[in-house]
């Protein structure tokens, strides 16, 4: 809390113009700007993986389209719903933390974590299903052997982000509840969570919808 007030104090007199300089030219704390910069670099990582996936897919003449409506598309749609809803609970957590309603903010963060965990669990059952069907990194029963590598790399990196996000949110919820962290830290964690949600908005159409069996 003290650090938050210090930031507010530092902002005084800064930014009469957009590029006014001083300690906070964007009128945000350095944690928030740091998270934005991390998100930009992470976005480029995911963009590169999605590009690589599109590249090998277009370059293959036997790329498989294995996904039935059930289970793959139903699960992916439910997962999209869960992730979008967990973003809403996260904005509620940020809102509550700004209003200094600590207990309420912690509850909203716990709700967000539950959404994230549910996402990972459903995704894991889908992975197990595909592995049982014989999909491996460089082998599958349907066509281009790169399908498994592309699918598991893309969704695996995303799942890792969700899983790390759940742990991150757990730490933030605990420390924010105890008063060790301020509302800015909740907001920064929220930025990360929304970014993970955003990435899924590209994986869902490119990996799932374009692989519908038919």
């Amino acid at each position: 809390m003290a650090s938050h007030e210090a930031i507010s104090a530092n902002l005084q007199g800064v930014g009469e113009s957009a590029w006014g300089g001083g300690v906070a030219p964007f009128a945000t704390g350095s944690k928030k700007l740091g998270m934005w910069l991390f998100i930009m670099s992470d976005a480029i990582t995911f963009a590169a993986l999605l590009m690589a996936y599109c590249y090998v897919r277009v370059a293959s003449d036997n790329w498989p389209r294995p996904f039935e409506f059930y289970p793959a598309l139903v699960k992916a749609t439910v997962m999209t719903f869960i992730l979008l809803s967990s973003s809403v609970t996260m904005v509620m957590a940020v809102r509550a933390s700004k209003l200094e309603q600590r207990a309420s903010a912690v509850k909203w963060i716990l709700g967000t974590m539950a959404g994230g965990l549910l996402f990972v669990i459903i995704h894991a059952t889908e992975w197990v299903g595909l592995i049982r069907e014989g999909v491996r990194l460089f082998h599958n029963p349907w066509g281009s052997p790169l399908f498994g590598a592309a699918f598991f790399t893309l969704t695996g990196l995303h799942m890792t982000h969700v899983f790390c996000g759940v742990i991150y949110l757990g730490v933030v919820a605990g420390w924010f509840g105890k008063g060790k962290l301020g509302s800015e830290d909740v907001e920064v964690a929220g930025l990360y969570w929304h970014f993970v949600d955003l990435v899924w908005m590209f994986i869902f159409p490119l990996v799932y919808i374009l692989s519908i069996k038919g």
Partner: protein
Amino acid sequence: MSAPTEHAHAEGSKRIFLIVWFWLLALTGVELFLGYEQLELKLMLVLLMGLSIIKAALIIAYFMHLRYERPSMAATLMPALVIVIVLMNIFLPDSLRLLHMRPH
């Protein structure tokens, strides 16, 4: 001195979050619907990516709050991302060359 931030956060009200949430779900539904339409792949790709970019923009603007930040922040962050992604796209047509070079 906290007046500007309080003002900024008042703009992101609960109602706006729920409206954005509704639109994100609706656009997801449209994407799912398109998946079962027999469309040409290029058209499908343009439609799906267009919808996804709209969804990403909604998330960035409202959930990630960028709309209510200084415009200079978006001006600092976004161009680099867009330029890098566009530059990566330059390599995509090369995949067609690879497709035609396949021996079988």
